[in-house]
């Protein structure tokens, strides 16, 4: 149902829209943005499932997930990239915090001072005839060769997600056999996420 543009909003309705980060103009909906959640969870089977499940159950986007143990063997660190309106992301944060397996959470909104990195592995077809050209191309793009054999070259690249995107776009024109991305890892430059 489309709102009737002739019906003026009350002051309270305008306030609610602003508080939710929504635009007050009916013809200019808010653009969803990608937020990163950095989460410390219990390191046991099921904890990751609960977080990931929550996103699908609550109709929230999940762009990437990366998880691994931390210096504390009982704690894993989970980095989730999610795209949504401010209101959606805020609700996602509240729901994730409610999970018993979630020990600490920090939310990085677009524009926050964040260090973000992603690892990409790419396998490119390379025979004796064109190997040197492939190597030159990938080195030129800043990638490191991690494996080479008669048929292919595997390279790794670390960078922020847009650099990885650009890298894949370029190498996809040169016999890209497969590609794997780690999902993004991120730290806030000033805040430190730690167990409470």
């Amino acid at each position, binding site marked *: *149902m489309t709102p009737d543009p002739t019906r003026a909003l009350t002051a*309270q309705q305008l306030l609610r829209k602003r508080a*939710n980060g929504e635009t007050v103009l009916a013809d200019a909906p808010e653009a969803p943005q990608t937020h990163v959640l950095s989460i410390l969870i219990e390191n*046991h089977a*099921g904890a990751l499932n609960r977080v990931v499940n929550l996103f699908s159950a609550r109709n929230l986007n999940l762009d990437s997930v990366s998880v691994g143990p931390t210096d504390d*063997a009982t704690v894993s660190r989970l980095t989730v990239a999610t795209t949504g309106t401010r209101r959606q992301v805020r609700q996602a944060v509240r729901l994730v*915090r409610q999970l*018993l397996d979630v020990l600490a959470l920090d939310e990085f909104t677009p524009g926050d001072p964040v260090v973000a990195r992603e690892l990409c592995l790419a396998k490119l077809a390379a025979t004796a005839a064109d190997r040197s050209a492939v190597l030159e191309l990938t080195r030129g793009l800043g990638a490191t060769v*991690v494996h080479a054999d008669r048929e292919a070259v595997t390279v*790794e690249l670390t960078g922020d997600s847009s650099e990885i995107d650009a890298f894949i776009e370029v190498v996809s024109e040169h016999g890209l056999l497969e590609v794997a991305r780690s999902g993004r890892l991120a730290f806030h430059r000033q805040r430190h996420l730690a167990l409470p």
Partner: protein
Amino acid sequence: MPADPHCDDMSTATLPRPAHRAAPTPATAPAAEAPVLTGADIFVRSLEAEGVEFVFGHPGGAIIKIYDALAQIRPSFRHILVRHEQGGTHAAEGYAKATGNVGTVLVTSGPGATNTVTGIADAMLDSIPLVVFTGQVAVPLIGGDAFQEVDTMGVTRSVTKHSFQVRSAADLAPTIKAAYHIARTGRPGPVVVDLPKDVLVDEAPFEYPEEIHLRGYHPAHPPRPDKIERAARMIQASERPLLYVGGGTISGNATEALTDLARHTRIPVTTTLHGLGAFPEADDLALGMLGMHGTYWANMAVQTCDLLIAIGARFDDRVTGKLEAWAPHAEVIHVEIDPSCVSKNVFADCAILGDVGDVIAALRPHLAPKDTVDWLAQIEGWKRQVEEGDTEPEATGDGPLQPQVAIRKLGAKAGPDAVLTTDVGQHQMWAAQCFGFGRTRSHITSGGLGTMGFGLPAAIGAALGLRGTGATVVSINGDGGFLMNCQELGVAAKHRLPLKIAVINNSRLGMVRQWQELFFGERYSETDTSDTNPDFVALAEAFGCVGLRASTPDEADAVIEAAWAVTDRPVLIEFIVPNAEMVFPMVPAGAATDDMILTRFGGDA
């Protein structure tokens, strides 16, 4: 990064092994002299230590060890053998809602577990504390498609507050302690504990922990003084304040404090479906229920108020209708225990996180009586406007029996101490509108999930929990939902529960029929139950209950008298009612709250 990236050998790398268990840690380890028991015995002893009164269960292969232990130990709690696991979960919900205690369910693996899913989801949406113990195949068999194996943790993940799979007998007692703690505290909810068969056979020292440490769980939020002061200022400054009271007020045991607060400040009160009973309906500040089938004056008050004080309520879509148009002039104060409910649907200008009782207690000293005479008179005007146009259905004579009349008669007979359970559909709304709720915890229904088949088993659980208190338990059902768990009649009969079970029989799936009449061009698709309904009186008699029938107002009076004379077994009363009756007022789904349908023929708000 390894020194030589070409030599990453994943098979020999020593990766940190994640502990494949999520057992909570007790504050202290069991003492050296703790007795060594089997897992099944530990289970029974733990439930005793937890103070469990009733276990609603059904045996099966994976949990046969527990049933063997029950036969030998003769525990302090009673096991109620239900005839379907779904009925067991609803009975546990009814028990929990009527008493405020945690309900306990015990079922076997596979189908036993999946049959509980509806009840677990129901408890999740209605914030009912439950612990559901599900059997599981032995740990070495998990994942191999063993007989009666299902991934219960996976299946129930999104409908539980939390869940555990116990992986060793030593973890049993602390896990059970944690499960009850989680179910009971904060915003209550269901917890599943999955019990592999071998864990019940293995032995471990048993000591029920006094305390449990869960580092990721923080249910308590002491109310923030600055928020309390802000709310108090908002209340004092408001001219047309309205209390919007939900089920959290009842589960937080704050109904007396709320009643006192409303009377002290002279602020009118509207309740949600689950809030019924939180505020005396006879009070002149009571506006009744709001929302889709709420009263006209309650909904008009919402649309006109300048301050909405939500207490233990979650702004459900059946309350708000079209969100954007709801309470357009109101600032919102939201008193809530669950942070994820704040500003979820409607932005809260002032959110006070915390236990409802604590918040009201903190708020009360800051509030002085308000002058709301004009505001109450305005609401009274809306009320008169509707009531003048109303024609009351015949309450006597031998004409057709209107469902509202039957329900009013039941409510009048049952009196203020009665507890009512309802199923889902038209009768549920008529009961909410007409039965009359005299006290807290007197209205038990499936609100969030809308589970047909809830009413009868919930009444069994409530009646068991209220045994000895003298409270009459009435259950009002429709003919559609009643059949979905009617097998539990035998359980009610066995335990000689003097339930008064009403089946409002319109031979229709009435609420769907109503929508079909109003919004789907009177195309009555698959909503006629007349040719698949049983003889309800004979059905009751077959289960050892008393069966009665009424189809006129006078007959209704007579059978209600007869039903209340029976005290040693359940009575089922079938009320035959016209099949085209509809629930009004009605805010169509997705419409603005002041866009109400008041009567069938053209009445316009």
